[in-house]
């Protein structure tokens, strides 16, 4: 348990879990750190640790996360003498600065797609991972990360994923703030509470929307606050597949061969049965009787058309999971499709078949040629004149851009016809107005809640017609460090950072999230029971733990309390 790597061996003693620091209610947050710092006089100026930039979202974008960053940085400055400055930027700027490596620390929330750990293990931390902006490159880890995605035996894959988490825990390229617990509210007068299904996507999951039972007239049309239904609805466009908001309408209007069930296990949806004939050949038989919203049947031809379209035109959003993993797709019968993989790829069902919507060939062929987008089908516009035609449980209704999007239920759906009549996205620009809309009965449920959890739960307590459910999601809020820049190139400093953040965690959870969160140690959330490694090492004792680690690694403070690099090392 908690084996330390070479650099971490010396600090093993401070990482005993469960020993919380009773004297400081802040867990080292803002109290006065009394750990005995290794203070030296006459430290050379070039060893002094210079200003470090913590790239953060703005307070307007996400108040609690900005505050958490400010708290961590203040602790760095006040307690460790490291001048870390919070730099709030627009979210687009945050993304581009991260990609360009223009940061020391960067913080946001991230989630594994469809419950599969590959997006975390490989994409983010493998040396060739598309999200590895941190310069993390660990030989053993690279082997594990590449190996787990080829491993088709689940238990063997689990072992590799667990070991990978261990390395991440020791090396600490990522330091988790918390696993968020998100509350959602719904109108329990209008909807039968027993029919509500909450999963990591909250209430905006297809199981919930198809199973909800209205108990009165109001509940037949479910009005919700989905932020901004004004983005791109073209299912081949980036915004319709990425982490952005139109994920939900796209998922609801189309069918997929597989979907993650409420427990995040991939389960056949449009597929009836499937079989790997060998490691790289997957045969899928589709369900019978499915139709598109215009009445045409859903057949193997549509699936083949969709995949061929993607492989030929390479919509940017599908390159990793479809173009690079799929060799060819062929029809084996009216409802039978064979997928030939380029190489064994364990997450194929979760990340490829679970992500690609089934598009109607007869509609898309015509649309693409009419609009002249043969090269770039993701640019085909979607609007009331050219609505989405899919086969999903909800249809495209009417769209008042930026103000309202109405999706009537597709009552003819072969196996998932919703009980409600329609879903309406009607966004309001403030959290106050959203909450008030719940109180007044304008909203039936909240698709998202980005406001204060405490306020929501207080409101629900006061209102008889409202109920709350909460879910711990599958993501984590974390800060990533740039290992190509000192002092984060030093594993000891990263471990000290982790100790500091672990110490601040209780304050973040209790004060900034009103208790709506759990302490976090691994990039993989415990809700992914099968993949999460509860023995992931982490460092604790807050500021004092950090001081001990830094002392042992040769860092020193001058009389003014400013931290300096170990002897022989100079940095920025």
């Amino acid at each position, binding site marked *: 348990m908690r084996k330390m790597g070479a650099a971490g061996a010396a600090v093993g003693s401070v990482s005993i879990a469960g020993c919380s620091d009773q004297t400081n209610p802040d867990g080292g947050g803002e109290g006065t750190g009394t750990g005995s710092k290794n203070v030296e006089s006459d430290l050379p100026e070039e060893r002094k640790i210079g200003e470090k930039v913590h790239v953060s979202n703005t307070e307007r974008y996400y108040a609690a996360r*900005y505050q958490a960053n400010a708290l961590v940085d203040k602790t760095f400055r006040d307690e460790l003498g490291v001048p870390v400055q919070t730099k709030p930027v627009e979210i687009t700027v945050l993304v581009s600065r991260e990609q360009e490596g223009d940061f020391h620390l960067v913080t946001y929330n991230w989630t594994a797609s469809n419950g599969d750990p590959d997006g975390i293990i490989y994409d983010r931390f493998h040396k060739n991972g598309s999200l590895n902006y941190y310069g993390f490159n660990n030989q053993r880890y690279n082997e594990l990360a590449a190996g787990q995605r080829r491993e088709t035996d689940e238990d063997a894959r689990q072992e590799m994923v667990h070991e990978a988490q261990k390395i991440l825990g020791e090396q600490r390229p990522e330091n988790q703030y918390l696993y968020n617990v998100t509350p959602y509210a719904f109108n329990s007068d209008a909807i039968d509470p027993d029919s509500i299904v909450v999963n990591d996507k909250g209430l905006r999951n297809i199981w919930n929307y198809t199973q909800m039972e209205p108990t009165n007239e109001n509940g037949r049309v479910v009005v919700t606050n989905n932020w901004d239904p004004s983005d791109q609805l073209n299912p081949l466009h980036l915004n319709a597949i990425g982490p952005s908001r139109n994920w939900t309408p796209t998922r609801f209007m189309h069918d997929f061969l597989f979907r993650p069930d409420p427990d995040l296990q991939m389960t056949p949806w449009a597929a009836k049965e499937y079989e790997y004939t060998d490691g790289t050949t997957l045969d899928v038989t589709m369900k019978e009787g499915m139709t598109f919203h215009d009445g045409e049947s859903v057949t193997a031809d549509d699936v083949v058309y969709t995949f061929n379209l993607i492989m030929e035109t390479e919509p940017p959003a599908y390159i990793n999971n479809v173009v690079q993993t799929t060799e060819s797709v062929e029809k084996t019968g009216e409802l039978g499709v064979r997928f030939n993989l380029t190489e064994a790829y364990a997450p194929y069902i979760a990340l490829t078949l679970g992500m690609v919507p089934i598009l109607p060939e007869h509609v898309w062929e015509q649309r693409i040629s009419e609009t002249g987008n043969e090269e770039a089908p993701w640019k085909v516009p979607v609007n009331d004149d050219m609505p989405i035609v899919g086969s999903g449980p909800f249809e495209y209704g009417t769209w008042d851009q930026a103000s309202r999007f109405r999706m009537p239920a597709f009552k003819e759906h072969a196996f998932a016809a919703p009980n409600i009549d329609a879903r309406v996205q009607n966004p309001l620009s403030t959290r106050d107005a959203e909450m008030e809309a719940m109180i007044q009965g304008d909203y039936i449920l909240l698709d998202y809640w980005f406001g204060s959890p405490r306020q929501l739960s207080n409101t629900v307590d006061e209102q008889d017609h409202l109920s709350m459910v909460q879910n711990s999601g599958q993501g984590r809020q974390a800060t990533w460090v740039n290992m190509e820049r000192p002092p984060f190139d030093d594993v000891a400093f990263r471990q000290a950072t982790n100790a500091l953040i672990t110490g601040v965690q209780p304050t973040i959870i209790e004060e900034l999230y009103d208790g709506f969160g759990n302490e976090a140690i691994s990039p993989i959330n415990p809700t992914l029971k099968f993949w999460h490694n509860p023995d992931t090492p982490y460092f604790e004792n807050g500021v004092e733990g950090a001081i001990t680690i830094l002392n042992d690694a040769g860092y020193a403070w001058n009389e003014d309390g400013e931290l300096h690099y170990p002897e022989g090392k100079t940095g920025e």
Partner: protein
Amino acid sequence: MSGETSSSVAHSEGEPSQGWRRFFENLRNSAREQAHIFAQSRMAVAGLVILIFYVVIALISPYIVPYGPYERIYTDAGGWAKLQPPSLAHPLGTTESAYDVLSQLLLGARIAMFVGLLGAFMVAIIGTTVGLVAGYYGGWVDEIVMRIVDVLYGLPFIPFVIVLVTVLGASVWNIILGISLLYWLSTARVVRSEVLTVRERPYVEAAEAAGASDFRIMAVHILPNVIPLAALYAAIAVGYSIVAQASIAFLGFGDPTIPSWGVMLQRAFVTQSFGTAWWWVFPPGLSITMVVTGAYLVGRGYEEVVNPQLQEK
């Protein structure tokens, strides 16, 4: 509009030093005259009192604030003292992040007065200079200046400043830059048209005939006539600048490390405290209203100086 204040002074060109002396004399006379009219308007005096009050607060706030603007307040139990209603220890309660509202409010006066006064100063300087030059030289100089004014009119203020702040970084300085870039236009236009009438006056023509330099004529003979007008626009610009800064901050593009009134309101807004924490919402909003009203009242007093028909009899 009228230039009564100095047209009665005899104008003959003498030695440069005399000219400058006359300039200051004119200025002093007109200032005295203006102050007199100004003092008669009770509203203007009231406005001035409000402004001075807030300037004083701004100056002394660092020494009298009970807490740091971002100093965490704890409850006895050790948790954060969030959204505490007013009490003896915290006369205006605390914020969602457990900061003292009164301290933030007092320090916010600094930002407001800084932005207001500096913004107004920039507006007056730029507007007057441009208006003066354009009106005096006329011809192609005027043409170019007026075309620039036209173009800048075409940039909507708040969206433009938001883009500016995104490009250059969120800081009070960049908001002042935005104000300086776009708010001088009206001042310049009005000053220019005033200059057009003043420069037709006989004493200006006399000065020209006597070979006075352009700079001298503008500074000595024309400027004193347009100063009241510039001051009027500056007074109004104090209010405009403060509201502009608060608006930008309210939309979330202010500098969050500085406790301005706009940032305070934005925090109350994003943390959904608008309906509950009146002690946090009303003080900054009312302060903005008071300061801006003060500036308007002063401006109105000045308007009576400039436009005698408005004077109360």
